[in-house]
């Protein structure tokens, strides 16, 4: 298959304008453009819809409040009262991933969450932040997080390394989950789109129908992955407060 028709071609990054800073290439690319669109959509929507600050909300204001309450509820359910401080961060994270995924669903639009470096950076921020938070809250006692109480003592040499590894693999699992979902979904859509073109006569309508259904599924996954990202962040924050 020619590189031009590869289903992975959609993930290629094209610079829009070449910028260099201190020897590093920080070109404004189609990925940056998608991020810009995402940020603009979120900020403009959340600002304009709540502009009137009416007690009886309009439909658009209701959507903003719904998202606000969704994340607020998520945080209070998982972390409790301590979670209120992290609400702006978790909300930003959720909206950024959600709208980033949704922007990616627009045909010919780039999906920046399908790049492991982006999702890993977000997951790393969460991981480092939560680890620092754990040490701030518990000091050196935070290491007892890897010690599981109520287990026979001879199991600890086995369990403590497992706990450490599972803790350290959190940013990887968090980022790869989102990245792989986006990658797989968009690749699959592209593959079936190729079938529509290449199949003879009218049989192309079958993969087309499949694409329609798959697009619905992808929108669901776009929401679901943003939700998973947010809820795991909440759970990690909770771990930084409550050791075993």
């Amino acid at each position: 298959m020619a590189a031009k028709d590869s289903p992975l071609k959609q993930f290629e990054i094209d610079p829009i304008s070449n910028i260099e800073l201190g020897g590093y290439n920080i070109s404004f690319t189609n990925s940056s453009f998608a991020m810009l669109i995402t940020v603009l959509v979120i900020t403009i929507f959340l600002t304009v819809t709540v502009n009137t600050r009416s007690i009886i909300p309009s439909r658009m204001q209701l959507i903003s409040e719904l998202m606000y309450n969704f994340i607020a509820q998520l945080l209070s359910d998982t972390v409790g009262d301590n979670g209120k401080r992290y609400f702006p961060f978790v909300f930003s994270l959720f909206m950024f991933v959600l709208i980033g995924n949704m922007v990616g669903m627009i045909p010919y639009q780039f999906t920046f969450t399908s790049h492991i470096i982006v999702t890993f950076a977000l997951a790393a921020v969460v991981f480092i932040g939560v680890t620092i938070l754990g040490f701030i809250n518990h000091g050196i006692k935070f290491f007892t997080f890897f010690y599981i109480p109520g287990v026979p003592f001879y199991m600890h040499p086995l369990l403590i390394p497992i706990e450490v590894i599972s803790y350290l693999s959190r940013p990887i699992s968090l980022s790869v989950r989102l990245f792989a979902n986006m990658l797989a979904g968009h690749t699959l859509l592209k593959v079936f789109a190729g079938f529509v073109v290449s199949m003879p006569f009218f049989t192309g309508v079958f993969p087309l129908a499949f694409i329609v259904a798959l697009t619905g599924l992808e929108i669901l996954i776009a929401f679901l992955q943003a939700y998973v990202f947010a809820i795991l962040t909440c759970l990690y924050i909770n771990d930084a407060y409550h050791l075993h």
Partner: protein
Amino acid sequence: MPQLNPEFFVSQLFWLAVFFTFLFVFLWRVSLPRITTVLEKRQNKIDENLSSAKELQEQAMEIEKKINDQINKAKLETDGKIKDTINALQEGVSSQLSSLDKDLEKKVSDAEREIIKNKNDQMKNINNEIANITKLTVGKIAKIELSDNEINKVIETHKGSYN
């Protein structure tokens, strides 16, 4: 796979940092406080309305209590008045009855007295009548002119037999 091409890693990280930081600060400082204000305002309004509704309910209950009290009071008053009226009526009736009784008694006694008086009068007259009749009868039958004294004497001797 383009994702593993490190050519644009720095660029992506740089723009991610720029845009995500902007988004975070903007939401934290501008958008979310607005929504918080709206939600708090709404909650306050709801609480206010609920408390005023509670107050009104209490007032309504107080008024209802007052109304019930007044109804009870009015009932008691009317009961008393009805009783008073009944008593007054009964008293009036009994006093009228007793005065009627008295009148009747008086009338009866008056009538009795009248009758006795009449009887006595008649008794007095009867002697004269008897004397006259006797005088006339004796004069017509026996052609004897009797004096009043003689006749009276005879009548006196027979008096007990018809009285």
